[in-house]
């Protein structure tokens, strides 16, 4: 009897084993199968190289170079300690620091942990040789952005850094992951999708100590696509060196097509500091009160000053408020309403061409008041102000063109003739970006077309300029155009012209200067124009933030044009 009870009891125990087996192998199969794969399969990332950025002649502006990272893959404490001590000795870093890095970068078991990045090649080779004895040490090659020209074209290119929460939330659907390196600002950001490399992976089978057993699969990394810009490296260099340390911007554009030859903004920064991540230099950039990261050419909106007078002139001619024979007397100022508006000089009798050449304010006070603010507003919009130009760079701002209705709506104030007078000489609430100004200058260079500026010529060898929208004709009458161009030429050629310093260059330059009063600090200095006069190949805008006057901008333009003709670029 008792043996039956015992047998029955043992039978129940064995039944329990069947239940246990069924539970693990059937009910929980998926879980354990996954855990098993995780145990013995490792994915080792294979970094690819980000696309390079080239100038219009395929000269490399921004490149990549190979760096070496030290990683450690150890599942046992002894192995880890050994690996850390040998790495510490080779790199000359204290083991405690490496341990800290290990703890910080540890993500999951069986994934290599990065201990040090960008180690130099000699040390990498030394560690690589130790690999036989310390299988836990992994040296990974990683292409890293390099900037052979330092801060050259930094605002066009932008910089690279780890993706932030805001960008991640927008880009997650496009295959971006946390910790991805993405572009910030410039072409790096705008064309990140093309430039970014696709990480490859090596899937290997390893044993319980993380040692390699065999390769299971390999997906090679895909390098990013190279992007060719419309920039001309030589012109960009000239533009930046001429601008020097002054705050401001230079844009040089093909007035016929809108291709940007040079786009400089100062002060700049060396994007390399974002790669090397040395704390102090990064902190300097963010602490700098001069907005080092801002691309002044497209993201800064400033009062254009007298440069704007060309728009007023075209508007007045087109609406027949004045004609080519109209002249006004400039006694050095005039009373508008009950306020006396000064001219910067005493010009006596001035017709349109003279008024442009001498930048006579009184002439334009009269003209503007004849026109009225709404018309100036409308013609400004026609010339592309108050809207981004649509250049293929991020963070372009619209600028601002005031209107009497706006003043009433937002400030509950009446628009006075004084406001119109200010508006007509490019002062007051009007705000423009240098890229808008160079586009305006192009209209007179290309005889009446509003172009769409762009900076990327081709992606991975495929020309994308065909996708650009065509130029838009503004329907400016030939007579008016010729007169305004004549005025612009006189700005340089007339001995009393405001840009007469540009006379006597090997190439005939036409343009307009501007000196815009600002509420705080020195006035902004502008020069916008085109050259050569007969067959314009370049439209230029020089802008000096708080640069004192248009004269300073002219000097920069002179230096640029001189250097360009010296190098045979004109």
């Amino acid at each position, binding site marked *: 009897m*008792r*043996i039956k009870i*015992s*047998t029955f009891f*043992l*039978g129940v*125990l*064995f039944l*329990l*084993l*069947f239940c*246990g*087996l*069924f539970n*693990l*192998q*059937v009910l*929980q*199969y998926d*879980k*354990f*199968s996954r*855990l*098993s*794969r995780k*145990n*013995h399969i490792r994915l080792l990332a294979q970094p690819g190289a980000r696309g390079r950025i080239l100038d219009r002649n395929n000269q490399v502006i921004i490149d990549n170079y190979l760096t070496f990272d030290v990683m450690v893959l150890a*599942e046992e404490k002894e192995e880890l300690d050994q690996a850390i001590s040998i790495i510490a000795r080779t790199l000359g870093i204290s083991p405690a620091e490496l341990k800290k890095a290990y703890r910080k970068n540890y993500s999951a078991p069986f994934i290599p942990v990065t201990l040090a990045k960008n180690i130099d090649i000699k040390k990498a080779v030394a560690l690589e040789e130790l690999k036989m004895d310390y299988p836990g040490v992994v040296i990974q090659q990683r292409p890293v952005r390099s900037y052979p020209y330092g801060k050259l074209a930094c605002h066009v290119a932008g910089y690279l850094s780890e993706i932030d929460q805001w960008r991640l939330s927008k880009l997650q659907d496009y295959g971006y992951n946390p910790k991805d390196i993405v572009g910030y600002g410039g072409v790096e950001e705008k064309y990140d999708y093309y430039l970014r490399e696709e990480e490859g992976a090596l899937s290997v*089978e*390893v*044993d*319980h*100590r993380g040692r390699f*057993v065999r390769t299971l699969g390999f997906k090679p990394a895909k390098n990013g696509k190279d992007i060719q810009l419309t920039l001309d490296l030589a012109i960009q260099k000239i533009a930046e060196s001429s601008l020097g340390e002054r705050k401001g911007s230079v844009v040089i554009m093909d007035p016929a097509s809108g291709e940007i030859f040079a786009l400089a903004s100062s002060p700049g920064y060396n994007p390399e500091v974002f790669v090397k991540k040395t704390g102090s230099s990064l902190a300097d950039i963010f602490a700098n009160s001069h907005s080092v990261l801002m691309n002044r050419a497209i993201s800064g909106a400033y009062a254009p000053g007298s440069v704007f007078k060309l728009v007023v002139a075209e508007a007045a001619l087109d609406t027949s408020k004045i004609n080519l024979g109209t002249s006004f007397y400039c006694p050095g100022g005039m009373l508008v309403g009950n306020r006396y508006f000064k001219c910067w000089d005493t010009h006596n009798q001035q017709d349109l061409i003279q008024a442009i050449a001498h930048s006579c304010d009184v002439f334009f006070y009269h003209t503007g008041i004849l026109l009225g603010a709404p018309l100036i507003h409308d013609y400004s919009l026609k010339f592309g102000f108050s809207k981004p130009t649509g250049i293929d760079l991020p963070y372009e701002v619209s600028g601002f063109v005031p209107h009497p209705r706006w003043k009433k709506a937002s400030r509950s104030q009446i628009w006075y003739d004084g406001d119109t007078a200010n508006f007509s000489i490019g002062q007051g609430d009007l705000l423009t970006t240098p890229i808008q100004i160079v586009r305006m200058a192009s209209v007179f260079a290309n005889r009446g077309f509003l172009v769409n500026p762009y900076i990327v010529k081709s992606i991975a060898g495929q020309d994308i300029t065909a996708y650009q929208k065509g130029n838009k004709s503004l329907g400016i009458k030939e007579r008016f155009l010729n007169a305004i161009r004549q005025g612009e030429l006189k700005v340089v050629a007339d001995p009393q012209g405001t840009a007469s310093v540009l006379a006597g260059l090997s190439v005939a330059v036409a343009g307009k200067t501007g000196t815009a009063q600002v509420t705080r600090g020195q006035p902004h200095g502008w020069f916008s124009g085109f050259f050569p006069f007969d067959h314009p190949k370049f439209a230029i805008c020089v802008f000096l933030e708080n640069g004192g006057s248009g004269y300073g901008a002219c000097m920069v333009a002179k230096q640029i044009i001189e250097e360009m003709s010296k190098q045979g670029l004109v």
Partner: protein
Amino acid sequence: MKASGFLIIIVALTIALIGILSIYSSTYQKEASGWQLVYRRQILWVVLGLVLFFLLANFNYRRLWDASYLLYALVVFLLFLVFVLGAIRLGAQRWLRFGWFNFQPTELAKIVMVIFLAKYFSKKSSGDVSLLMTKFGILRAFVLPFIFVAIPMGLIIEQPDLGSAIVVLLIFLTMLYLAGIKLKYVMILAAIALISLPLFWNFLHDYQKDRLMVFLNPNVDPLGAGYTVIQSKIAIGSGGIFGKGWLAGTQSQLHFLPESHTDFIFATFAEQWGLIGSSALILLYCALVREGIRIGLDTHDYFGRLLAFGISLMLGLQVFINIAMNLGLAPVVGIPLPLMSYGGSSVFTTFIALGILANIAKKRSVF
């Protein structure tokens, strides 16, 4: 040889062959060539085990009756030797070295305790033994045999080999129960064992405490003591219904599973052969135990009967504890899976036990 003895050797040999295949697969990818020899040595143990089986199958088990005190003394002596050598070498030791063979007296102790207890409880022979048993006072029925069991058990715990000590204790309880001792006494002993558990806790080594804690929750220490249980469960679970296939067990062959050829041989097997294979294996063990119990039921000799039951249940208990431990249903205590796990001592004593069973089957008509 009778049919039942034939059945025993066929089933045992099948299990042993499965064991050799599993040991081969678990050592298949080990780099050092020394490991390749492991399965060959197991073949040798099985062959020698077979020799022992046939020797015992033709050795009248009644003579064990006469030799039981001698065997008991021998086992206690060997265990004492292990204890003394262990003390001299200042370390844990479970085996004695005989030339090239490391012998574990503990394995022998299990079978000898079965023989000894079978004799003790059937001393008065003949049919009214059970009646006599009920008349046995608490001293003779309970205290005296307990002292006899406690001596080798103490030495085994001291080695330290908690698992084997528990097996010996369970053998004792089972034999007491089967011998017809008043249920009251068996209960009392079981109760004492339960009550003394907390006291016992303090005498455990730290690693033993860890293992018990880990049994209650393997995630307490996933890279330390819990590692083996987790890896064993992964191995078995990832085998699924059909298994990963012969020599394709990643858990065992890439060494994520420790002890894959000894205590955790079942996990190695289950990973490669799945639910189907491991169910078949458990059924083979069931067949073996069942056959042993059938032999006992057919035997009229009370000593032979008790011996057959004892051997069958000892095997069954060890199989259960080992597999349950592989499945994470029991704490990790070092108990080999009879006939499967690598190790001469275990293979030898199992074949000896089965040989005795075969002999009982042969002789049962004598009485």
